[in-house]
């Protein structure tokens, strides 16, 4: 399917043909039973969740599926992923979730490969939920920060009680039901990364995504004052070495796989780096079509597009003129401070929300720039691939791809 081959007349930035979206994130619940101190949804710069329905209605869910079906038909894409997200998506209850999974597979039956997933805090998983996940072939991501004390330092309920024990019980149910699950773990500078990784691996995770703490240039100063110049690189580098030297044994670590891809001249498969068009969208509980939800750390309503599934097709996003449309369809311009950087084609400014400041918008390198440079320099040294070699490989791949495209 030719994506964006022909621009709309008068709008060279708008593709004439709808482009495939690989992932639709369905915010089926806008409330959470936890109150983690670092949450970008409830404890940062955006409070729009207060005006959203607590749970997505049946009408909105069905409208979402119809729009997804239309979009897949229009693009001809053969594969799509749906992610149940929130808030805490298990707030919808297992019976409704089960029915929604069945409806999703039924309404998207014309799409060859439909993947369902859920990102949950894990506290409400029991044998019933585990059976529902297994029967509907739902991949599960659970948030675990580390051992009990580390985890319960941040991930608490609304009365301040830790959530570790309830999560571990839930993971046991997932394992017993044969559900594939992995972990999102927020990096906490100063912690022992190898100890945390061993603990998560020991729980039986299939993958571990280490998440960089969400900060903008307006909020990062305290972190640097407390933990130094490169606290995230200091955390990740020992893990990278362990991963590389073991041949990738243990849970899959997408962050490192992606860094290695980039060093070897590939394109980024992860939005942390590369400034690629993200090509995925969010649908809120009220049906609003939105862009990246982590933009909430930057300010109120940053992800708004003005579209909703009750009245709009996803293809209309391209012409919406919103910040989200730019991020999703094209990627933002490289920050001016990155123009002469050795990692300008690999990192390419970093994760978009981390580029933000009130003074300069998104025209700054990531707040984690020093960490990224340190991590890439380390990876290059350990893999024996210089920046010049990356560029050579990248150019060579581009030539081969162009040759394939020419037939």
């Amino acid at each position: 399917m030719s994506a964006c081959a022909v621009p709309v007349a008068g709008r060279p930035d708008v593709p004439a043909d709808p482009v495939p979206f690989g992932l639709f994130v369905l915010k089926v619940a806008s409330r959470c039973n936890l109150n983690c101190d670092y949450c970008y949804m409830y404890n940062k710069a955006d409070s729009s969740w207060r005006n959203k329905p607590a749970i997505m209605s049946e009408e909105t869910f069905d409208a979402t599926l119809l729009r997804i079906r239309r979009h897949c038909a229009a693009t001809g894409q053969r594969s799509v992923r749906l992610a149940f997200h929130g808030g805490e998506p298990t707030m919808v209850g297992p019976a409704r979730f089960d029915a929604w999974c069945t409806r999703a597979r039924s309404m998207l039956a014309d799409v060859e490969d439909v993947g369902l997933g859920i990102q949950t805090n894990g506290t409400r998983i029991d044998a019933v939920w585990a059976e529902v996940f297994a029967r509907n072939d739902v991949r599960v991501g659970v948030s675990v920060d580390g051992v009990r004390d580390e985890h319960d330092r941040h991930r608490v309920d609304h009365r301040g009680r830790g959530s570790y024990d309830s999560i571990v019980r839930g993971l046991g149910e997932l394992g017993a039901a044969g559900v594939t699950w992995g972990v999102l773990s927020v990096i906490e500078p100063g912690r022992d990364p190898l100890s945390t990784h061993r603990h998560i691996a020991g729980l039986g995770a299939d993958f571990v995504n280490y998440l960089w703490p969400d900060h903008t240039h307006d909020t990062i100063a305290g972190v640097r004052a407390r933990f130094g110049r490169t606290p995230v690189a200091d955390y990740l580098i020992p893990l990278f070495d362990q991963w590389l030297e073991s041949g990738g044994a243990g849970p899959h670590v997408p962050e490192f796989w992606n860094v290695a891809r980039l060093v070897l001249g590939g394109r980024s498969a992860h939005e942390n780096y590369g400034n690629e068009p993200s090509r995925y969208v969010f649908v809120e509980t009220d049906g609003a079509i939105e862009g990246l939800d982590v933009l909430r750390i930057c300010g109120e309503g940053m992800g708004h597009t003005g579209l909703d599934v009750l009245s709009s097709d996803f293809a209309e996003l391209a012409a919406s003129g919103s910040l989200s449309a730019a991020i999703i369809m094209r990627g933002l311009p490289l920050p001016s401070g990155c123009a002469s950087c050795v990692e300008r084609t690999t990192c390419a400014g970093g994760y978009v929300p981390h580029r933000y400041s009130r003074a300069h918008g998104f025209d700054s390198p990531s707040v984690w720039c020093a960490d990224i440079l340190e991590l890439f320099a380390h990876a290059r040294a350990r893999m024996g691939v210089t920046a010049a070699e990356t560029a050579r490989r990248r150019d060579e791949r581009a030539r081969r791809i162009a040759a394939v495209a020419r037939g």
Partner: protein
Amino acid sequence: MSEPSDQASKPSVDITVSNLDVPRENLRETLIAAIDAELERQETQEMMPIDVHLKGSTHLKSS
């Protein structure tokens, strides 16, 4: 973003190495070769599998 889990789906190349007799240098080179092979395969594919890190409820508190 991932996917919620997909974002995290295992690579198609099995890189798990259980043979402890394999020298460490070989493990590293095997891993790098597997990643390089994945890049070669994807060159002709229409869509890149973007691995979204859906920050989940964790970092996300909610979301």
